[in-house]
């Protein structure tokens, strides 16, 4: 605090800084609140999707067991077929209160269903069921993955924002305030000093003038008496008052 010279210019400068800091603080607080709302939403959707997933995935795997019972072991046939994906994951960016969050979307490439006639001689319907169940599970998985990555990123962003808000609130603004107070005090004190000095000077001058007047009066009487004796006493420069412009 002692590094800042307490001038009026500095006072203006620091007033400006304080204003900037306060408005920045207000904006950041708004951002933190928006992020918090979104965060809570995400947490709720994640909990819902996860609880649904447990039942979905167990039923999907069980439908696979049923299909294998009905159609024999068809895993090799699927893996020997062409492996072009029919479903792809699209990556996108979502903007929430200025924070960029990654999201994943389910995306069908429109490629033909390979192995459509699997289980032709038995269990075809069961295999269809497996396909449906796993597609559903896949959609939920993609949704959950998207939600979770956004959640993590959002969490990070929220931490940073909160940290900045707190820093502004508890460090920067008080510091600026402290500097401003110091400058105010110093300026006040300077004024007071000036004032006191002026007063002192004035006081001293009045006393001096009083004394001068008294001397003058005394000196005037003495001069009348000494006039006959000494002619040169008329030209004594000592009794004349000073010429003050």
């Amino acid at each position, binding site marked *: 605090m002692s590094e800042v010279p307490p001038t009026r210019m500095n006072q203006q400068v620091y007033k400006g800084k304080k204003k900037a800091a306060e408005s920045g603080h207000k904006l950041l607080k708004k951002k933190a609140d928006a992020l918090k709302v979104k965060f809570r939403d995400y947490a709720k959707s994640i909990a819902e999707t996860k609880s649904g997933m447990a039942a979905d995935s167990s039923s999907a795997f*069980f439908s696979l*067991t049923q299909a294998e*019972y009905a159609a024999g072991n068809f895993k090799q046939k699927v893996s020997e077929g062409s492996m072009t994906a029919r479903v792809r994951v699209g990556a996108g960016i979502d903007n929430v209160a200025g924070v960029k969050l990654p999201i994943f979307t389910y995306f069908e490439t429109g490629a033909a269903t390979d*192995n459509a*006639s699997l*289980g*032709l*001689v038995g269990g075809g319907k069961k295999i269809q069921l497996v396909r449906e169940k796993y597609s559903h599970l896949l959609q939920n998985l993609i949704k959950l993955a998207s939600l979770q990555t956004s959640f993590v990123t959002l969490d990070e962003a929220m931490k940073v924002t909160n940290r900045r808000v707190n820093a502004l609130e508890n460090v920067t603004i008080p510091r600026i305030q402290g500097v401003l107070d110091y400058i105010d005090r110093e300026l006040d004190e300077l004024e007071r000093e000036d004032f006191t000095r002026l007063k002192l000077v004035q006081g001293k001058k009045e006393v001096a003038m009083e004394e001068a007047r008294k001397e003058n009066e005394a000196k005037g009487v003495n001069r009348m008496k000494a006039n006959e004796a000494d002619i040169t006493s008329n030209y004594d420069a000592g009794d004349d008052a000073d010429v003050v412009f």
Partner: protein
Amino acid sequence: MSTPGNMATFNILHGHVESLVRGMRSSFLADADYHHLTQCETLDDVRLNLSETDYEDALADMNALIPTGLQKAAVDKLVTEFQFLRTQAIDPLAKFLDFITYEYMIENVMLLLKGTLSGRDINELIAQCHPLGMFKESTMRSIPTFESTPRGYQDLYQTVLVDTPVGPYFSMFLQETAGRGEVSNVLEEVEIEIIKSSLIKYWIEDFAKYVDSLGGETATIMGELLKVRADTNAINITLNSFGTPLNEPAMRASDRKRLYPALGHLYPAGTAMLADVGDEDELGRVLELFPQYSSIWNIHAAGSEGKSIDDAFYERDVQMLELAFEGQMHFASFYAYVKLKEQEIRNLVWISECILQSQKDEINKFVPVFSFNSGWRASSKKR
């Protein structure tokens, strides 16, 4: 050569082997075994229970039981038993047993061809082949060396497949596709399942012809079993083709019809009607005309939560196969043995998967073999 099924002479050539297979009949899991298994909480309990059955040796090497490991061990056990029978058999029983293996050979050939098309390693593919349908190692290894062009397939047939027993089926299939003016790349365009269904069709027809030539009890019983198999295939192909390109009107008459075997109760009138069926209602109407299939169809139509049509077919198959064990001096018991053992393996895998995935309420949805509580046995006992 005496005809099999001739009571007087059968035992000379095949008596020993038949006695073996009848002895193996007692190795099937009984009602009590299935009951214990379904009560198990963990797979270790399952292992414990299985070690008291005929599966004791098969599981001796396993540390922890998992459904896939169980399946592999059970299939290996079946293969060992089958090969034991095969080595002691002589013609015509030997040829009959070979015919049974052709079904698995077809599957293996398709797997190898399709796999090499996708560029997989031949060793991996061989490891995944069904052990009952293995043919010579050298033949298998030479399959991936051929290019995937029409010319390549001709070459492949002429040099490699012609040696295998399933070669003729493949050549018939290629001729038929070539005859329809398609010179294009057959294996890549036509789906693997469709090719396999065609090959199976030829196999069923060939097997039926052979069985007829044997005459006697074998022809009667085995003929019936194969007819039912052909019908099941036809119905399943029709039902499962709904929703796939095979169901398009253009494809129905040409492609789908060609997949129906030329035998069975549904042939020829039924299959002609099936060829035109476009959806489930039409299929139901066609099947109403055949009493033995209308009851099965009703089970399918009744609900999807209960039994499915596959379950109904399995039950009916098991009943017929069990009956095939009755009566002596015929070969059908060997076919029945293999198929029933397969059902048992399916049951074991189902039970262990249900236990693993904690789906205890579904665990009883299997078809026990030689059970005293089978629907048809129980109802006939009441009389």
